């Protein structure tokens, strides 16, 4: 996983509540057995005017000029500004994979669906929660100023705006540690292998039916 320390980038506004993971990456692209290559199909049904197919060349497809990521001023965006309950619906990790593959490193929204929120951290994508009023202000600033960028400092948990304002944000200590160092948490959990074995042994005693072998 790519470590996340300080990131500065152009902000793209996704002004819509309850953006679901079917919207982020439609089901036909979930047939891949790889973790990469989902970026060209991020928001496929909003981004293109025709129906996308897996393993197809997307370069000649008609783009929806209305869609935010197709507008010239948001090219190269790496911070997504969103509304409440972002990432609801399916548990597909393909959603953060697609966002990350497209080039996003952080999302800012008033709230996220739980599974999406969790999945993002595992993929070097930082989902930041800010209150609705602050998010509203950011939407106004992004829309009024072309090339609007934010600088996100994870270590100090602060977002710096172009006007010099600093916005503090909260992040879980363990997730922050993993993200800052690009750590794989399986390795960390396996440091507790002895505790797991001990628990398992006790459980085998107290609830033996959970270890019955099915013939």
């Amino acid at each position, binding site marked *: 996983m790519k470590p996340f320390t300080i990131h500065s980038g152009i902000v793209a506004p996704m*002004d*819509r*509540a*309850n953006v*679901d993971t*079917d*919207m982020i990456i*439609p*089901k*036909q692209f*979930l*047939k*891949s*057995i*790889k*973790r990469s290559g989902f970026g060209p199909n991020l928001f496929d*049904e909003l981004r293109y005017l025709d*129906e996308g197919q*897996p*393993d197809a060349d997307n370069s000649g497809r008609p783009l929806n000029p209305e869609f935010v990521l197709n507008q010239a001023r948001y090219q190269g965006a790496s911070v997504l500004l969103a*509304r*409440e*309950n972002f990432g*609801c*619906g*399916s*548990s*597909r*990790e393909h959603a*953060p994979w697609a966002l990350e593959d497209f080039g996003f490193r952080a999302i800012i929204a008033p*709230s*996220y*669906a*739980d*599974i999406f929120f*969790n*999945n993002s951290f*595992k*993929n070097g994508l930082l989902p930041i929660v800010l209150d609705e009023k602050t998010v509203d202000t950011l939407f106004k600033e992004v829309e009024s100023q072309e090339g609007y960028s934010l600088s996100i400092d994870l270590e100090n948990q602060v977002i710096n705006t172009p006007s010099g304002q600093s916005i503090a944000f909260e992040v*879980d*200590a*363990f997730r922050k540690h993993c993200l800052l160092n690009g750590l794989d*948490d*399986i390795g960390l*959990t*396996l440091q*507790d*292998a002895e*505790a*797991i074995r001990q*628990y*398992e042994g006790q*459980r085998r005693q107290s*609830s*033996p*039916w*959970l270890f*019955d*072998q*099915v013939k």
Partner: protein
Amino acid sequence: MGKTLYDKLWDQHVVKERDDGTALIYIDRQLLHEVTSPQAFEGLRIAGRKPWRLDANLATPDHNVPTTSVERESGIEGIQDPVSKIQVKTLDENCDEFGIVEFKMKDKRQGIVHVVGPEQGATLPGMTVVCGDSHTATHGAFAALAHGIGTSEVEHVLATQCLIQRKMKNLLINVEGTLGAGITGKDVVLHVIGIIGTAGGNGCAMEFGGSAIRSMSMEGRMTMCNMAIEAGARVGMVGFDQITADYVKGRAYAPKGEHWELALAAWEDLKSDADAVFDKVVEIKAEAIKPQVTWGTSPEMVTTIDGFVPKVEDAKDDVEKSAIKRAHEYMGLEGGQAITDIQLDRVFIGSCTNSRIEDLRAAAAVAKGNKVASSLKQALVVPGSGLVKEQAESEGLDKIFVEAGFEWREPGCSMCLAMNADKLGNGEHCASTSNRNFEGRQGYGGRTHLVSPAMAAAAAIAGHFVDVRDFQLAD
């Protein structure tokens, strides 16, 4: 102070508390399917890791499998879509390589993972159950702690038998009273989502309680827990009782003999204590619930069969105003339109929400002696597993459906998410017993209306939505 069911299940599974408020939680059962597991197995291979405990895992392909009997006869080779074929093949290869039990495509125990787990007794009360699928909440109906996870976590559970979790809040949905005739778990849960909204359960474990739930079948409870995630709650659950025990007893993976007696004694405590404190309680009157139909592109956009599509000016704020406007455009509906006036193109009865035997019986009771409206392009019935299909056929339900003009298919996720060939055409309206009415969910440009199985069958016959309570059953 008493404990909630969630508190008890959590406490029983803590391997280690961490200083930052998270805990290592032991996982008793992981269910695997072809879509969210390939990258997890690949991760194990790259790191040179082995599964921690093989017998805790059970796999079956479901999302991509075709549902016509012609395609199914030749197993994987019958899958027309080459990309789908590779994915199903990859699951087989991974399970063979690592030694994980899999119900393969030609096994009659194959089916939708959330139908198969409970049906086999692989889901047991008191377990922690995970799967790379958000509808894993289904298994909470057995007083289990069950939730969906992402692929990185699938790999984490394979490698460590644990998950790093932070405890959620306790939310009780208390449904008191008696449900009216023709009202099912599906109507109850859609009604709940309509009240608390699609983010109403975010960060919560949602327990369904109250007299209406206590008298509900396991199938109804599974339907409700299945859709907890549509209200934002990763976990849905119902306390253990005699109905749970009766359902589990005798199933292939259920404990036998002395172990059954031991288990039963332990399971008795799997319910919230009378003095348990919930962070939030939502009271619902069972008698007030009518048949539900979604009109929009989020499960919270739901109304009753005698209701109307809301108008833009009914919105409480600007965000909702634009959501309603966009939903009108996508769904091809107008504010103020009666739900019963929505003309349908297809009907889908199936999915992990509503493809169990009770669901098929309810739909067949409506279909019996009737004909699917000639205006419909297709009415599909897709049983949840090979065993559900076998049971339905032994009761003659397949004949009732076929005589009425429904197509009787092989088990799989099918048109719920259209990863196989079963999908909606652009602009088509579908009465569906599935769980999500998101844009494009059932096919590019497809328009989904979520309903109960009986409501879907009645809509198939009328060609538009009708109140199943007014429907004359053949017997």
